[in-house]
């Protein structure tokens, strides 16, 4: 299984619909300070079900919606979708490709979708259980937090090892 594409619309600084296509191997993301690189990481964390506004550097969950710029009005909603391919083996799924999508409105109303069908957060979490992509995931290392596992308490480190068992 691997990531095929990430689509953002109205998520943080991505006001316009933006698609990043990925290939297997290493993809580097570059650009000046403040241009939106870490926002891409936040988008992936968010579409996978992140519930903590603080982990997305915001105060409330609506802080992920495009706030506007000198030349733009604020957006009313934001959407992020993740397209994964070769899913049969690792997800035990009948689909070769799956697309998960998350949407939030200004009033805080949130929705999740699995291949176009509305679903719940629990369904997304169940889908990725034991793949290393879920909540306790060691697979998304935020900026400046790479060595966090070294400063956490011994009992907090267990979750990462259990996920690998």
């Amino acid at each position, binding site marked *: 299984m691997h990531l095929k594409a990430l689509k953002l619309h109205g998520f943080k600084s991505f006001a316009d619909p933006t698609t990043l296509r990925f290939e297997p191997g290493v993809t*580097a993301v*570059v650009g000046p300070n403040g241009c939106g690189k870490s926002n891409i990481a936040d988008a992936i964390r968010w579409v996978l079900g992140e519930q903590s506004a603080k982990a997305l550097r915001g105060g409330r969950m609506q802080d992920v919606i495009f706030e506007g710029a000198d030349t733009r009005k604020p957006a009313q909603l934001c959407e992020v979708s993740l397209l994964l391919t070769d899913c049969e083996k690792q997800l035990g799924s009948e689909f070769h490709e799956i697309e998960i999508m998350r949407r939030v409105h200004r009033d805080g109303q949130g929705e999740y979708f699995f291949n176009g069908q509305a679903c719940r957060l629990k369904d997304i979490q169940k889908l990725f259980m034991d793949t290393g992509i879920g909540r306790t995931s060691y697979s998304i290392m935020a900026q400046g937090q790479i060595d966090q596992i070294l400063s956490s308490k011994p009992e907090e480190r267990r979750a990462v090892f259990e996920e690998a068992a």
Partner: protein
Amino acid sequence: SQQQFAVTFEQIKKNFAYTFQTLFGGGVANLELVQAEDILESGIEIAAQPPGKKLKSIMLLSGGERTLTAVALLFALYMVKPSPFCLLDELDAPLDESNIGRFTELLKRFVHESQFIIITHNKRTVSAAQAIYGVTMEERGVSKTVSMRFNHLVGDTEAAPQNIA
């Protein structure tokens, strides 16, 4: 189950000693269960000693040594259960040039099992990638992405011929 966790833990422990020595060119790294008699609840202690040093605790490691130790643990986990993809946000910021080289060398061994998305400002890390995305904010406050490639003659990134992002 208890048995499964114990087996996985022993395997990760061996892997960690190996990946640490590869990244540091020597030294000793170890994982211990804090309460060995209670496998299912016990916390996990991390010990790491760069080559030639006598370290009492991982808190005395330098900024770069901490990052390298955390990466050694990440790869040790991936040797047991590779996650489909991994996102690293400026993990190379505290590393000196020679440690970036060691990291990118070891990374090459994991790209067949997992997909890596690496946010970076360092040209050496970028040159190890198969695909590059540039993020720009030509319109202030609004992020756009553009597909790039690495020109090995010049040693820097340039816009890819046809912009598909």
